[in-house]
Structure formats: C-alpha cells, structure tokens
C-alpha cells in the first residue's frame, strides 16, 4: 500500500467508513506511526470544523414571488401533461405517428450531417413542440430546441451570417 492509499484509508477511518478488523488494524498502525497519528488528528479536526458549517442564506427574492413562480410552473406542467394525455383523433392521431418519425428523421439528419461538428455541443436539450418553423428553399440544416425551463426557444442554423455593422443603418439609428 503506497502512502497515498494509506492517507485515504486514514480518512475513511475518520469518516467511519472502515469497520471491524480492518479498522482495528489501521488504528493499531496509526498508534505506532507519528505521521499517521498527526494526519488522523488533523482530518478529525477538519471534519469537526465542517460539521454544521453550511452558511445560512435567505432566499434573495420575496417568498410570495418565489411561490408564485413555483405554482405557475406546476400549473404549466400540469396543463402540458393534460394536453399530451388528451385522446388523439383525426389529425392528432396522424401527428402521433408522424411526430416520432419526424423526430427520428431529425436525429438521423443531425447524426449524418457533415457539418455537425461545427454545431452546438451536446446540450441535453428538448426538442420544441408547439412552435412553427418555416424554412427557405435552400438546404440549410436546422435544429430547434427549448431550454429545460422552456424560457428560451432556439433555432440553430448551419449558416454564417455577415455580422459586419450596417453603417448606413447605424447612422439612421
């Protein structure tokens, strides 16, 4: 066992993660080793310091506002859940099949697109659902998604627009 492993085992002993004969053997070893005894004492001191050391902080926004945000979000989620649970009929039943296929198509398009390395990183994002998107006739790869909190919808285009300022417009502004 190297020194580093021994240090970690002493820590495990302090943290109560070692039991039985293993703990006993290490205790005996610590008693006969000044450096380990010191390490054990210091780790115990740090543990003691940390006990209950989390600094209390008041929420930085009024409680009723906090609650209103929570209750709005709960109601929003419940409305969404109800909408999704509504029985499909007519166009709805068609969409029920088309939407997963379209989603699969988007994923395949993204996976096979040669430009995907230039796109945004793996974001863990949700595909947007209640948004309408119309594309130009040009073949521009597009992906759409919402952030988890649904406060931001994003349309990502594989297209570089000219960012240089419009000097005439700036003058008019």
């Amino acid at each position, binding site marked *: 066992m190297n020194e580093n492993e021994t240090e970690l085992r002493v820590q495990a002993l302090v943290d109560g993660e070692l039991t039985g004969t293993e703990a006993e053997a290490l205790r005996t070893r610590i008693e006969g080793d000044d450096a380990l005894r010191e390490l054990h004492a*210091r780790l115990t001191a740090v*543990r003691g*310091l940390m006990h209950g*050391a*989390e*600094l209390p*902080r008041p*929420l930085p926004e009024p409680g009723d506002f*906090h609650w209103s945000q929570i209750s709005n*979000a709960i109601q929003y989620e419940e409305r969404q859940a109800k909408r999704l649970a509504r029985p499909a009929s007519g166009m709805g039943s068609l969409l029920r099949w088309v939407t997963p296929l379209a989603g699969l198509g988007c994923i395949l398009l993204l996976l096979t697109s040669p430009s995907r390395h230039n796109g945004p990183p793996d974001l863990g994002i949700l595909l947007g659902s209640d948004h309408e998107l119309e594309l130009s006739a040009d073949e521009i790869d597009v992906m759409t998604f919402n952030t988890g909190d649904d406060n931001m919808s994003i349309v990502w285009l594989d297209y570089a627009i000219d960012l240089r300022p419009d000097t005439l417009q700036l003058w008019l502004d």
Partner: protein
Amino acid sequence: MPEEPAYSSAEDPQLVEWAKAGDMSAFEELVSRHRDRIYVRAYSVMRNEDLAVDLSQNAWVKAWQRLDQFHGEASFPTWLSRIVTNLCLDELRRQKRARMDSIEAMEETTGPVENRLEMETVDPVEGLDRQELRERIDAALAKLSDKHRTVIVLYEFEQLEYREIAGKMGTSIGTVMSRLFYARKRLASLLNETLKRDGLIE
C-alpha cells in the same frame, strides 16, 4: 362552510398528506418553511445566486410532481434536499458538456510529498464565533473547484456515504475518497491563510 385546515400549525407529514391529495395551500406552507434551506443547498453547490434560485424552484416543482414517491423514510426537507442536489449535479454536468470545460484536469495531483495534509494550524479557531467561522468556511468553499466543492457538500452537508456520492457523481468510490481528501486539504490550507491574514492565528 368547511373550515380551512390550520396549515401553519400542522406538522410536515400532515402537510405532505394534504399536498398529496392536491392541496396546493399545504404545499405552499411546506415551501414557505423550507425554501431557505433548499436554496442554501443549491447555492452551496452552484455558488451562483440566480442559478440557485432557479434550481430550488425546479426542485419544488419536481417535489410536487413526485409527492407520491415520498413515503416518509427521511424527513421531507431531507428528501427535497436530495432532489435539489440531484438537479445541481445535472446542471454541473450540463455546464461541463456545454462549455466543454475540462474539470477533470483539476489539481488532483498524486505525488506523495506534496499531497501531505498541511493544516498544522487548522484547529486554532477558538475565539471565532460559529457565524464567523461559517463565513470563513463559506469563503473557502467558494474557492474550490466544482468537483471538490460538490464532494464536500455531498459528504459534509448532505451527509451521504462514499458509495452514494460515487453513484450520484458517476465515479468510483476511490475517486470520491481522493476528491474528498484533496478538497479537505485545500480547505484547510485556505482557512489557514485567511485566519493567518486576519491575525486570528500566528
């Protein structure tokens, strides 16, 4: 007219039962009782006020949705604290992915000499009141890397075991032990500096 339940005098388990039955007012009372604590836990991990507020709000929404899964094995605030901690870990993972931040490359050096726990003067904190000590520890925690701080929060504040932390962080028990050791080492050294600088120790 039926009398409104006495929310403010009801115990948490009673409020939880009412909330499970769809009583939003009971849930509001639970939020009002524990919102600061949940926010503090989120802040301890994220060290960002806005994110901590957002994540604690999300935790309450998730709690409402999962109330049926709460059977009282732990206290309600402990259960909720687990939810907010999980959301914080997800957020850290998402930030790491989004920013391609190489947190892995942080200072987990393993040389035997430089890794000695240098905290010869950690214990002379007598004379500091608990609040002052908490503030100094908080300032030191803010200087830790995300992973070191997270492991400290999970172990010391959330009181999880090594294996539970390993599960949550998606890593091995050995890595958890190592991170905890170096986080403590760094904390001790930071506390030492600040206490020395303020003349509280020599």
